[in-house]
């Protein structure tokens, strides 16, 4: 086990700057997820930790060693690739022990490790097969197995589940998390799927265009997104946004079509900023057709329903409020008609405020 620290890491390809400056600390034994849309630099960051890409500037520390100049094999890491990258001409066993054989490890020890890993992953009966005789999920397990037999101090995963079907993905998600908890190995996991990030990571680092947007636990990201990008990226369906202006010394948000009072904590965030343009963020579960108890103050808004999505336990209603597209939630047996206008309850304690110009979160004490 080891910590992984990225200090001022920069990556350029020729003239193109992919990562301007990345500072990130991954604690010992932590499951850190790097998440972001494609091209955000998350895979590049992972490949730099792996040693497959050179670092243009900055420092990467694994354990207590600066590994900038170290060959991948000397970094004490193992990586699972998106495409699994199994050696097609070798059996599953040979795939898993290839690295150990290169290290000229004792045969008995190799067998012990491979058999252990195969048992943990439930692939014992496939050890003598070749990758092409395996299903996608089995190949995925072999790829993970190849990583764990090395007993490295850091695991790197590069979108390992994106080639699996939805059901298998959920299953493997749980397996990988369980495995990480059991082994306690520091893990860096790259994905573009925010659900994977939320469900798997101890902490999540959100990247966009090579810039780190926010690092935090899944709940921190969900409840206090640092900026508009994180607010939009985390959560399904994504957060709704309503533009407005601060009024009444931070007590109210007003616009031509709606207006409401802010609860005390949010007032503090915008006090003295009357007239400032803000975006009010509200998650669909806090914009509801039903009035819930114990959620604090609410206000009502008029909402034109355009589309209903029934999920069973709830109904997601897409519609418009004064020209803004929004998603709200309804109880399954109490749904509005499409094209009708209904009242929505906005749960004020769960609002998020963002500066319309800087797109940063407005919170108390700033």
């Amino acid at each position: 086990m080891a910590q992984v620290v990225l200090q001022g890491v920069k990556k350029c390809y020729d003239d193109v700057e992919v990562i301007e400056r990345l500072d990130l600390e991954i604690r010992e034994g932590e499951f850190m997820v790097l998440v972001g849309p494609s091209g955000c630099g998350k895979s590049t960051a992972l490949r730099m930790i792996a040693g497959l890409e050179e670092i243009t500037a900055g420092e990467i520390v694994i354990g207590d060693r600066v590994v900038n100049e170290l060959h991948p094999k000397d970094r004490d890491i193992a990586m699972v690739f998106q495409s699994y990258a199994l050696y097609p001409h070798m059996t599953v066993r040979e795939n898993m022990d290839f690295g150990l054989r290169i290290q000229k490890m004792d045969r008995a020890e190799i067998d012990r490790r491979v058999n252990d890993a195969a048992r943990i992953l439930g692939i014992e009966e496939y050890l003598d097969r070749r990758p092409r005789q395996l299903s996608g999920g089995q190949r995925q397990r072999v790829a993970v197995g190849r990583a764990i037999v090395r007993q490295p101090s850091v695991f790197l995963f590069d979108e390992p589940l994106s080639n699996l079907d939805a059901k298998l993905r959920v299953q493997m998600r749980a397996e990988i998390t369980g495995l990480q908890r059991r082994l306690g190995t520091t893990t860096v996991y790259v994905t573009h799927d925010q659900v994977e990030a939320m469900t798997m990571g101890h902490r999540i680092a959100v990247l966009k265009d090579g810039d780190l947007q926010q690092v935090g636990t899944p709940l921190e990201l969900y409840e206090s997104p640092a900026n508009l990008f994180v607010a939009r990226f985390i959560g399904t369906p994504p957060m709704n946004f309503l533009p407005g202006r601060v009024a009444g010394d931070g007590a109210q948000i007003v616009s031509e079509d709606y207006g409401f009072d802010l609860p005390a904590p949010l007032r503090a965030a915008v006090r003295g900023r009357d007239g400032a343009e803000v975006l009010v963020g509200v998650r669909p579960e806090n914009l509801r057709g039903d009035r819930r108890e114990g959620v604090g103050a609410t206000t009502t808004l008029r909402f034109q329903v355009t589309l209903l999505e029934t999920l069973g336990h709830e109904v997601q209603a897409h519609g418009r409020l004064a020209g803004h597209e929004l998603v709200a939630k309804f109880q399954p047996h109490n749904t509005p008609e499409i094209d009708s206008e209904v009242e929505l309850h906005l749960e004020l304690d769960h609002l998020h405020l963002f500066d319309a110009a800087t797109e940063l979160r407005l919170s108390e004490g700033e």
Partner: protein
Amino acid sequence: MSRRTDSVGHLWLHLFLLVMVVITVYPILWVLSVAFSGGQSLAFADLPPDPGVLDRLRAIVPWPEQLTWSNFSDVFSQQPFGRWLLNSTIVAGATTLCGVFLASTAGYAFSRFKFPGRRAGMMGFLVSQMFPGTLTLVPLYIIIVVWLELGSNFLGLILLYSTTAIPFCVWMLKGYFDTIPIELEESAKMDGASALTIFYRIILPLSKPAIAVTALFSFMTAWNEFVLALTIMDQEIMYTAPVGLRFFVGGYAEQQWGYFAAGSIVAALPVMILFLILQRYLISGLTAGAVKG
């Protein structure tokens, strides 16, 4: 109704194919017939002074009047054909080894590494394939025989054949290496493999089909080549099989078509055998299962 038109259509098709088969196979049967006839004549049968229809028909059916191995045994005992075959084997074998080794390493470098002159090198190889061999005959003769003094020497011929075969082989292998996912190498790199280990234990085993083709091509280039061998090898003892064969016929002496035919068949066998052995590698799909799919 439609079935009948179908079968009529098939009849013509089959007739056409049959004619084509005869046209294709006839020369081969001719050679076989001459080889097994025991004589040195190209004709299947001697025509009587006043030939009838049957006699004429007999004269075009490629079947010898008697079947005997004598041409085959004589070509080895009366003529130094065995030695020539050995020469061909040495030259073609060495060319194959040299060609496959250099082409696989060069092809790998061209496929995976970025270095100055990479594009120029690949283009150079391509351009070198565009000139007919005869164009370079004189300069090659001067280089090999006059300057390097490698006339009637295996090394000279191996050098020549390798330089002919390698450009094609490099392109062929480079193209194949390009299709091997880079993740496999990265994965091996993470596993602690050195560049050489990756090449020998990951890339080469996966490239068996391409290597088989390359080896076959190198071997056939060297085995069948005639003009260069004739130019370089001027001692009879150093002839390769194609050059030796040529001396059975042509010239002013008696035409030894029997030896020629028997020799040709013997010389064709190694390539045929090689084809059969390498056949199972000449199928692609060896990388299936490496990455998703």
